[in-house]
C-alpha cells in the first residue's frame, strides 16, 4: 500500500475499468463477426495482481484476460452473447463512475485540507 500515493487503490481500479470498457466494446463491435472469441478482464484478479507487482497495470491486465465461455455455442464460432456483454458493460460503466466518485471525494478532502476550511 505504500507506493499507492494519494489515491490509494482507485487509480489502478480506474485504469483497469477503462481497459475493461474497451474490451467489452470490442466484443459488442464484433457481435456479428464469424469466429470471433469474446474476451473479458477478471477485475478482481487484475487489481490484486497490479497491487502485488507494484502497479504494473499492463501485465496485470494481460494475466487477468480470459476468453468468455458461451452459455450456448453458436454455429459460426462466435462467442459473443449480447445480453451478457451489455450487462457487463453497464456494470462496468457504473463501477467506473463509482471509482470517479471516490476519486472526487479524495480530491475534495485534500483540497479542503490545503485551504484550511
Amino acid at each position, binding site marked *: 500500500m505504500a507506493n499507492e500515493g494519494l489515491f490509494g487503490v482507485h487509480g489502478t481500479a480506474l485504469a483497469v475499468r477503462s481497459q475493461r470498457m474497451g474490451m*467489452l466494446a470490442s466484443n459488442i463491435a464484433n457481435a456479428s463477426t464469424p469466429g470471433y472469441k469474446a474476451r473479458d478482464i477478471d477485475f478482481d484478479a487484475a487489481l490484486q495482481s497490479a497491487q502485488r507487482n507494484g502497479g504494473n497495470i499492463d501485465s496485470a491486465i494481460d494475466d487477468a484476460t480470459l476468453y468468455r465461455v458461451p452459455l450456448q455455442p453458436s454455429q459460426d464460432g462466435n462467442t459473443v452473447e449480447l445480453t451478457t456483454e451489455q450487462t457487463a458493460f453497464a456494470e462496468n460503466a457504473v463501477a467506473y463512475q463509482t471509482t470517479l466518485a471516490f476519486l472526487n471525494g479524495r480530491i475534495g478532502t485534500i483540497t479542503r485540507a490545503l485551504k484550511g476550511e
Partner: protein
Amino acid sequence: MGDRPLSIFQVSGRAMSAQLVRMNTTASNLANAGTVASSQGAAYRTMKPVFRTHFDEVSGMSTVDVESVVTAGAEPTKRYDPGNPMADKDGNVWESNVDETRELVDMMETARSYQNNVEVMQTAKQLIIDTLKLGR
C-alpha cells in the same frame, strides 16, 4: 491506419460503418427481390458483406472491418414467360432468388447491432467527460 492505438470511438465507429454496409446490401437485396433479367449472368444475386476482426496489438482492443462483399444464396431461377419484354429468344427470363424473410431478419439484427454500438459510444463519451471533470 498507421501505428496509433485504437480508441474506443474507433472500435464502435468502425463497427457502425460495417453494420451500415450490411444494411446497404440488405436494402439492395430487398429492392432487387423478384427482378427479372434476360440471361442467367445478368440476373441479380443476393449480396452479403464479409466481416473480419481487426485486432490492435497496442491497445488490446479489436474492431470489425468489411473485408469484401460477396454474392451468396440461391442461383437465379429460370422461368418460361414469352410475353415478358425481357424474355430471351427461347421465351425464358431469369428471376433473382432473394430470400426476403432472411433479409428482413438480417435487417433487424443489423439495426440492433448498430444501436448497441451507438449506446457504447455514448456511454464511453459520458465517462470520459466525467473523468475530465475530475476534481472540479
